[in-house]
């Protein structure tokens, strides 16, 4: 048990931003979820911009995303620094450029769970997983929809005030995280394949 206590300190590190690829939509949440749920796999490229008050320019990163229903999601950042996040079932693995890996069991960390489910549950059309952590509001039409997720957990609210996922039909185009301190990140997704 020795070192493990220590690694609690790492806890905070694990608030990772996972992100998603693409699929469908409609105007009622049930319909959107149903459509998204039909897509079984897909790959996409992403460009993510982080707008941070302290910095004069946004930080940009880019890479690839891959999703396989029902619960595998992979985000590979290529620039500026290669790193990877693989979410599979309940296990979140972070791979760093030097090849070292660390894994987290999501069941142990509800706040990380909430984070990753915003993307994964949306992509897999898992409405109940989504509503476990967020109150979801859908606007727009099937051509162009926007899903606003507001965290339910107070602990989560301290970090994220809202998550905005936008797309058209079964395609997720942008994912925006609005942080409680006013900073935000915006991920633009370009689908490269989908089934």
């Amino acid at each position, binding site marked *: *048990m020795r070192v493990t206590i220590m690694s609690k300190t790492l806890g905070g590190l694990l608030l990772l931003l996972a992100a998603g690829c693409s699929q469908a939509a409609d105007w009622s949440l049930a319909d959107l979820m149903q459509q998204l749920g039909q897509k079984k796999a897909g790959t996409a490229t992403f460009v993510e911009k982080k707008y941070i008050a302290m910095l004069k320019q946004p930080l940009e990163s880019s890479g690839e995303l891959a999703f396989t229903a029902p619960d595998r999601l992979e985000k590979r950042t290529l620039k500026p620094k290669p790193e990877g996040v693989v979410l599979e079932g309940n296990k979140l693995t972070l791979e760093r450029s030097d090849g070292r890996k660390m894994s987290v069991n999501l069941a142990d*960390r509800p706040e990380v769970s909430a984070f990753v489910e915003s993307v994964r549950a949306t992509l897999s059309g898992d409405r109940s997983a989504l509503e476990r952590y967020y109150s979801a509001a859908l606007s727009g039409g099937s051509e162009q929809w926007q899903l606003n997720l507001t965290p339910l957990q107070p602990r989560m609210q301290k970090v994220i005030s809202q998550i905005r996922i936008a797309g058209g039909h079964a395609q997720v185009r942008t994912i925006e995280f609005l942080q409680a301190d006013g900073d935000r990140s915006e991920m633009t997704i370009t689908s490269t394949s989908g089934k």
Partner: protein
Amino acid sequence: MKIRLHKLALCLWLAVMLGSVLVISQTRFVADLSAFMPKLPSARQQMLIDQLRDGAIARIVLVGIEGADEAERGRLSRLLVGKLAHNPRFTSVQNGDRQTQQRDQRYFFDNRYLLSPAVMPQRFSAPGLHETIQGTLDAMSGDAGLIVKKILPRDPTGETLQILDQFIGESQPASSDDIWVSRDGKRAVLLLQLSESGLNTDAQAAALEDVKQAFASLPGRHADSRLVMSGTSVISVASRNIIQSEVERLAIMGSLLVVALLLLVYRSLPLLLLGLIPVVSGALVGIASVSLGFGHVHGLTLGFGTTLIGEAVDYSIYLFIQRAGGKNPSHFWRTMRLGVLTSATGFAALMCSSFPGLSQLGLYSISGLLTAALVTRYILPGLMPQQLNLRDLHRPGLLLQKILDGLTRLRWLMAVALLAAVAVLVLHQQDIWNRQLNALSSTSAAQNKLDAELRGDLGGNDMRYVASFSAPDQQTALQLAERSRVVLQQLSQQNIIGGFHSPDELLPSIATQRARQASLPTPAEAERRLRLALQGMPLEADQLSGFLADLERARTQPLLQRQSLQGSAASVLLDSMLIRRADSYLVLLPLKPASGETIALDKVRAALAAQQLGQVTVIDLLEETTAIFDSYTHEALLFSSLGSLAILLLLWVSCGWRQAVRVTIPLGCAVLCTVAILDACGIQLTILHLVGLLLVVAIGSNYALFFANKQQLGSDAEQRQVEISLVVANLATVTSFGLLGSSSVPVLSFIGSTVAIGALLALVFAAMMARIGPRALPR
């Protein structure tokens, strides 16, 4: 003259008894694993022993709160921490609460410039700053962005990340609502560290009792909430308690059974009480001699108190029954003496063992048996009435004779049994031995399961590979750890090991801290370099004023001492790696395998030796424990064989080879058949079975000697009397050892079942083979 001599003997005996009682009242009883550790260990074994005794592992208590609902468990967990936090019996009490977490985070963050292995002069030059800040911005754009963003204003060079980097990949306890919970969320878990080392079982027991009482007294506790505890100390305290209560229970029940049996035979209370005198005297002297010889008595040795009843009670049985006619034949004492000598010879071999557990048992048995025999010889005859009014054993004697005559004719059965036994043993020779040390542990399966669960809950993986050394003082220890770190770091990069920990991660040596401080620029210089470094970056130097202030504080702050970690989880971690001993420091650097399960230790050793770090011992605890146990078993096997051989020689010298063979064959048969029976029942042999077999030889030789003693066989009636005494003695032995066999303490049950089966077989086989039938004698 004779009466005066007797009085003298009586006085001497009383004095010895009184002395023994005094010694025993001062005796310390222990129940740790020390009995199973070699007396003169190798460096690697010594390390293992140190770790078992002094290591933090031995001082950690895992606590679980079960039952009730989650909120209640959380409340109890917090209250329990509050109650125990200031108890001096604990150096650390943690439940993962935010306070402790924050204390740790603060320790690492506030002291990052002294703790970060990356702090070097060039890192704080203008180009160095530019590079590290760019690295931090890159990290911010990645997945850990939120965290990095938080530290940026005060730690733009990312020293905190450098420190955390050392802990990456560690599994962590689950938490819920800010306290640690089990993986399945069904219990709250806490981690306590005892102030006393693993050697002091009494202090540990008292500390554990404190935990129980603190829990029991928590206000408004739900009735269905309960406390569970595990850890080395819990297990050793529990096994000591089990051994103590079992020893008591078995001693009482064994005594009752033997008493009942003897009453049935003697029908005389005074005779019965007299008959117990040798046993009690033997046990007292046995314990006292072990205490004097070893400085303490192991609980297990004490457990054999009942085994002594088994053999020592035989002496008075022989005396009373065989002398019921009022005769005092000198050959009776000769046979007795031979019997005692054979037993003592067998146990003398154990005494030479390098394992305290075995040598304690040897000393205990020899001194106990000799005392019992001497008391039977010199005290009892003077105390017993001239005319023994034993129950008339004429009729059972006749019946017994018939049975024994029948057995003699069934001699061929012995050959069949022998063949069958050999066949079983040859077929099963692969798994006759149990090679695990914990086969001897008296913990229950449930306790082991709980231990594994709690360790799992706290994210623990067992420390299997460890690099270790000792140093005269803390600074030398830390400096050596720092030098070892350099080598281990390389091995980690080469993927020979997966990772490691070193105490200097938490507390660098003074020299290193000074060197790191000296790497930090003065305020004016730092600001100048920072402005240079930030050119072309999306960040202004003004935004990093916190960084400059922290840098200056770090440059002039007092150096970290061990007490700087007080109260943090990191201090428990440090204690597990930097262990203070009476006159030195023991350092343990846990190593993680790179992939799979094993580490090529020879490569690690070679790499360390190449850097003049030959004093660092690298061991595989699993291998080492198994090796210790193997050598333990081999030694026991060797000494048991030597003991048996010595017994043979003794018999040969004292009664000629013919008689020796007559006596030996049934004994050998009994031993082989006992092993075969145990094996066929799926019981793997441990060292204690071996000791049991030695007891079988020791006790069984008495039967064979009496059966085979020609001079003893005066009339038919006398022979019947002798045979009755043998059967009664055997019944007493089988009863008391059979009872021991039913014990829940493996150690006791192993010996008990072995001896009960073996003694019965020894009697039957001796009757078949060694017994001289009445008809064989000239009338």
